């Protein structure tokens, strides 16, 4: 801990945040091992405990140091980096520095129109051609694709084996020929995500992460880190959607009814319960016994956001009939609670779909947490190409 404190002091001494150029400072921070302290030395870390990070972040923030705008590069930090670290070659590890500083934005090419919850059924094909792979297929729900320099990609390299066995994991250059990014407009009017069409995109074999056919296992590392990221945020009382809706309530004494009052209080209590469960989950993580409560958090978050935003639109009555703007925007960051009540209502519908549907979460809870038997599976031993679609 004192090592980290010393390194922070040294970094600040060498690069006064007040005068340093932002990128220069971030690169220096990475090189000092203060980017993600639990990463190995040389890759932006110190091989230290995760818990040390918070202290480093706070000390640097207190000194007015710039950060790497983590929300903007969430997929790189939360999903690509841990996977590259776990499976990457030394050459691939060089991708981590510009990833962390935000010089290079990453996106994720996993979901497909035909493979949502059943991700392992994905159809994007990668065929070996000399030292390259040639990739063709369609990906969807890709945030940041239009800004991204790199993508993590899972593609099917062998359709003749059962679906989980025929996948391989790649790093994909988003500037390569054959990569076509098109905005995907949502029910909110925004195009927060993209569709990505891959047509004979050549990926060098050296961009492969993990073994051929091992893509499913590699992807699990990515997805597990996504779940941790979702469950791990600390929130203050009345933060997020409940805060916005409570403010709406306070601002409109004339619209209040006693029945709506009880309903809002019930939602407030639920939000507080969810917050406390989050506090407890983080305490469990800190105590080294993570537990499966993260899936409870995600389920609850989606339910609550939807209930609250639905309540707000109805509460606003006449005003709830209006919308702020239907023009197709391309927001750089998602803000579930931003814009108007109508936007919040519509955007919240995605919360129970993105990052694992609530139905898949319930399956996971029932089988992995409660130990209930799996349903009969019909697709385990069938070659992917023979599966009904």
């Amino acid at each position, binding site marked *: 801990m004192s090592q980290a404190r010393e390194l922070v002091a040294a970094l600040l001494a060498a690069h006064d945040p007040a005068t340093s150029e932002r990128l220069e400072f971030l690169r220096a921070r990475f090189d000092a091992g203060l980017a993600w302290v639990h990463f190995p030395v040389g890759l932006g870390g110190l091989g230290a405990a995760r818990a040390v990070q918070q202290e480093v972040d706070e000390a640097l923030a207190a000194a007015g140091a710039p950060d790497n705008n983590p929300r903007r590069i969430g997929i790189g930090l939360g999903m690509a980096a841990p996977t590259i670290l776990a499976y990457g070659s030394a050459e691939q590890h060089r991708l981590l520095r510009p990833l962390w500083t935000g010089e290079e934005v990453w996106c994720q090419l996993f*979901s497909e*129109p035909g493979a*949502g*919850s*059943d991700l392992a*059924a994905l159809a994007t094909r990668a065929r070996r051609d000399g030292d390259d792979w040639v990739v063709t297929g369609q990906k*969807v*729900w890709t945030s940041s694709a239009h800004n991204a320099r790199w993508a993590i990609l899972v593609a099917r390299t062998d359709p003749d084996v059962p679906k989980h066995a025929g996948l391989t994991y790649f790093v994909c250059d988003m500037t390569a020929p054959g990569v076509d990014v098109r905005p*995907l*407009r*949502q*029910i909110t*009017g925004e195009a927060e995500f993209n569709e990505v069409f891959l047509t004979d995109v050549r990926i060098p074999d050296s961009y492969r992460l993990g073994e051929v056919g091992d893509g499913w296992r590699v992807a699990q590392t990515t997805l597990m880190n996504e779940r941790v990221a979702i469950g791990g945020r600390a929130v203050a009382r009345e933060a997020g959607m409940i805060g916005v809706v409570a403010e709406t309530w306070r601002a409109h004494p*004339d*619209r*209040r*009814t*006693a*029945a*709506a009052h009880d309903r809002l209080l019930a939602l407030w209590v639920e939000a507080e319960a969810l917050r406390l469960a989050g506090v407890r989950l983080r305490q469990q993580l800190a105590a080294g016994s993570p537990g499966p409560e993260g899936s409870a958090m995600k389920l609850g978050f989606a339910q609550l956001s*939807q209930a609250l935003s*639905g309540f707000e*639109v*109805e509460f606003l*009555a*006449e*005003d*709830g*009939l*209006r*919308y*702020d*703007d*239907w023009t197709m925007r391309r927001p750089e960051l998602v803000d579930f609670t931003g814009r108007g009540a*109508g936007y919040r*209502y*519509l955007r919240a*519908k*995605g919360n*129970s*779909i*993105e990052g694992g*549907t*609530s*139905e898949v979460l*319930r399956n996971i809870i029932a089988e992995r947490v409660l130990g209930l038997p799996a*349903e009969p*599976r*019909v*697709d385990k031993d*069938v070659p992917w190409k023979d*599966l*009904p*679609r």
Partner: protein
Amino acid sequence: MNLLYSDVETDLRASVADLLGDHSTDLWPRLVQVGAHALHVPEELGGQGASYRETAVVAEELGRFVSPVPFLTSAVMATAALTHLVDDPRARDLLQRLASGSATAALVVPLSSWDSWPDGSGLVQSVAGALTADVLLVPIEGRLHLVPSADATVTPVVSFDNSRPLADVDVSGSPTTALSGPGDAAVRAALVAGAGVLASEQVGIATWCLDTTVAHLKDRHQFGRPLGSFQALKHRVADLWQSLVLARATARHAATALTTGDDTPIAVSVAQSFCSPVAVRAAEESLQLHGGIGMTWEHPLHHYLKRAKANEIALGTPARHRATLAPLVDLPGPVGAFSGAPPSPTVVP
């Protein structure tokens, strides 16, 4: 009280559905052509001499197609208001123009109105049907006034439900013609008729959502099986279907009650407060069960979600209709308590 669909109503549904399914031409003139816009208007006023039961069947189909036509606003609400004032020849004339299809009208109240509405002498916000109406019906100081919309300031607003676009209307300074007769009762009649018919529209929306979801669940495969073979999803659509069975019965009852004048206030508020949550839930469940595709602008689902949710506010939220029911069914609230409906800036009885 017959809650079934008659053969005539079933035929009507089929011909309206045919018409609405063909997106190539402007819908409203074709609806007018088949007389769907004037079903419950007496023949002597140029209508079809049918009843609200047939009108409700058309509303169901308009819900199933989320059609952007001034049916609710002109053919149901404005028509109901004018019918109430038909002793005034100017009301009668306009009613005949509406029935002939040569004009549409809109009542200048916020779409959310139920048991109160603002006086129309100032700015009135979130008015449905005003953008396309030829004539505006404006409640001012207890009388209903006619205002050619060309004389009024009608400002489009960005609407949550684009299939029923709203406008802010200002007639201050416009020349207006006051109709004789009880204007407030006419507005009330329009709101009651609108609310009763809107329940059928919600049933139509829920029907589309259920049908579309069932079709999707049969078609879409995940984990080597059709989604529809997963029991958790089956039970959810079974529950939706169950709710829809009940909703349809309430909507049919409301349409019948509007026709006979029997049990109307209870029937309308039961249907309104029951059908809206069913339609909203049907649309929300439909979106969830469609997964990501349901979140896209490209898929038609969002039009249904937005219409169902806007309809939940239109002509009284479910909670307001429940508050309306309380005295009618002898279920009084706490002693000395607030009635449940928020006060409006300008309340007209």
